[in-house]
């Protein structure tokens, strides 16, 4: 079964009396374990699409099935539960809590799930921090970490609860190319080892190089869907 199925998804924003269409009928299927990049110019609808599949917003029309569940039928509380348990987020500006250490920032995400004992939480947090290469830096606060290290903390925070889907909005935008590559390598490794599905939104060609599926979006429509080992599928 596909992890994500979008059928005829539209999203229209209301700006005063003017209706601004952001997505105009998206049909898309994402299988579990995919490493997908969504690219396109600013204002093309990338972030809107990520918000919809990330259960942060509801579509104006069409249906979104997450793991077979119709998101339109869920309440805000149920959507929050899906985000808490099954979706990890990585943001462009890291969005770490500055007063918490690297360990505590990661701990925050797994504490929300509220399913693990203190011992399990400690093991999982230490394990994921080691996996993203932050062993020994657990007690540093974000202002004591480099940009790359901060983004690794954000990755660890997204992955610690072992989500089905990780959504990354411009994860390399604030990083130099060397650091970007390191961070992408970490995410690719997690994708391989844990089988986590990744969807990126990006302008960065480096990110596209890492992706095994490329989706181009323009004016709210997917204009290109290419898998590495497949022929280009034009919409």
């Amino acid at each position, binding site marked *: 079964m596909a992890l994500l199925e979008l059928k005829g998804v539209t999203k229209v924003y209301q700006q005063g009396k003017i209706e601004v269409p952001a997505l105009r009928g998206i049909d898309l299927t994402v299988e579990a374990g995919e490493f997908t990049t969504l690219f396109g110019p600013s204002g093309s609808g990338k972030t809107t699409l990520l918000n919809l599949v990330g259960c*942060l917003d509801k579509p104006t029309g069409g249906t979104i099935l997450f793991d077979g569940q119709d998101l339109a039928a869920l309440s805000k509380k149920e959507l*929050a539960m899906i985000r808490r348990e099954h979706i990890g987020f990585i*943001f462009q*500006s890291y*969005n770490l809590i500055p*007063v*918490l250490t690297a360990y505590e920032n990661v701990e925050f995400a797994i504490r929300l799930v509220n399913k693990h004992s203190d011992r399990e939480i400690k093991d999982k947090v230490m394990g994921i921090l080691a996996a993203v290469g932050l062993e020994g830096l657990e007690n540093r606060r974000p202002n004591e970490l480099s940009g790359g290290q901060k983004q690794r903390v954000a990755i660890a*925070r997204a992955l610690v609860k072992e989500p089905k889907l990780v959504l990354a909005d411009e994860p390399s935008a604030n990083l130099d190319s060397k650091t970007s590559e390191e961070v992408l390598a970490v995410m690719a490794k997690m994708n391989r080892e844990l089988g986590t599905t990744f969807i990126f939104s990006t302008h960065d060609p480096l990110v596209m190089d890492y992706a095994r599926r490329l989706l181009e979006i323009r004016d709210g429509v997917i204009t290109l869907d290419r898998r590495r080992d497949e022929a280009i599928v034009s919409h």
Partner: protein
Amino acid sequence: MSFLVRLAFKNLFRHRLRTVVSIGAIAFSVMVVVFARGYVTGMVHSVTADHIQYNSGHIKIVQEEYYRQERLLPLNHSVDGLGEGGLDEMIGKLEELDGVNMVIPRLKFGAMVSTGDELLTLGGWGVNPELELAFTDIEDSLVEGRMIQPGRLEVVMGTKLLDKIDRRVGDKVTVVFNTAFNSLSGVTFEIVGRLKSGLKLLNEAVFLLPLDEAQRLLYMDDQVTELLLVTEDVGKIEEVLPKIKALLSEDGRYLALSYRETSDLIPFMDLAELIYNQVYFFLVVLACVIVVNTMIMIVAERTKEIGMMAALGLERRGIMELFLIEGGIMGVVGSLLGAMAGWLITSYFAEAGLDFTQAMAGIDADVPFNAIIYPSASLGNTVFAFLLGVVIVTLACLIPARRAANLEPTVAMRGA
């Protein structure tokens, strides 16, 4: 400790100065509440205690006609026993009543003393020194000399009165007064003690002499103008009063009045206490404006962070909890500091007193209002102010907390 509590605690250290200012505002208002409430309570206690000690006892027995003319201190409406029985028998019967601890007789009369240039009008109080020392705090006011003794022509006077008539302890003073037969009489007494009291009445308006001498000089043997009854405690008054009224009904001339019935000031004091309780509430609310303002700033600054937390799955309730805990910690710390500071200040003034003698110089001596106020430092008052601070600050934080919780994650993450 829950993760949210830990996070809320750490958040307070983001902008230390701002947190300190907010906590300081709460602490200051709670401190003022502790002190103001202690001050008002002390004032009410003082007015009540002075009224009970020097005017009414817990229950006052007077002739009905005397009560109507009390300001004139008439001698022809005295308490002289029940029916054919004498005063001692009446006192004995009253003392036998269950709940009555003490019966204090007083004989009050008008008198005059010459300063050389003018005549001062005074009140003479014939009293039983032993009972007065047992019931009132007059011993604390006796700053020089000793208390009067029965069977002697001696008086105790207030400091201000002695200044006015230019006498000292050990001097003689001649007092002029009307007897019960309306004849003018003058007697010279030895001044054996000097009172210094915040109560204008004791300081300059009355003098004390032995009851037996007052009865003899006024031709009022076995008579007094009033009997003051002291019950086991104030709460027993309502229980004892009907028994006394029943006993007095066999004579028909007397009134038995509880201390509340004989004071014009105490009902106003009760009203003032109620009004002040509302003032304390608004005082803390005022401090809350600073805290709410701080919290609104915090919400605005952390909009993206709130959006991120919501995106990670923290529900509306969790976001509200986080901000309420932050405000609550400020409320607890501020209120605790304020309550402690207020308690210390109130305790200091409870010992030292606040002297308003100059300010109250123009107030009539009949008003039983002590110019030295001793605030009441009580644990109950301190705990009340602490809880008031914590509850009001936490409730006030509901406004910014709701604001934070109502942010849509997608909008918040854009920093809108």
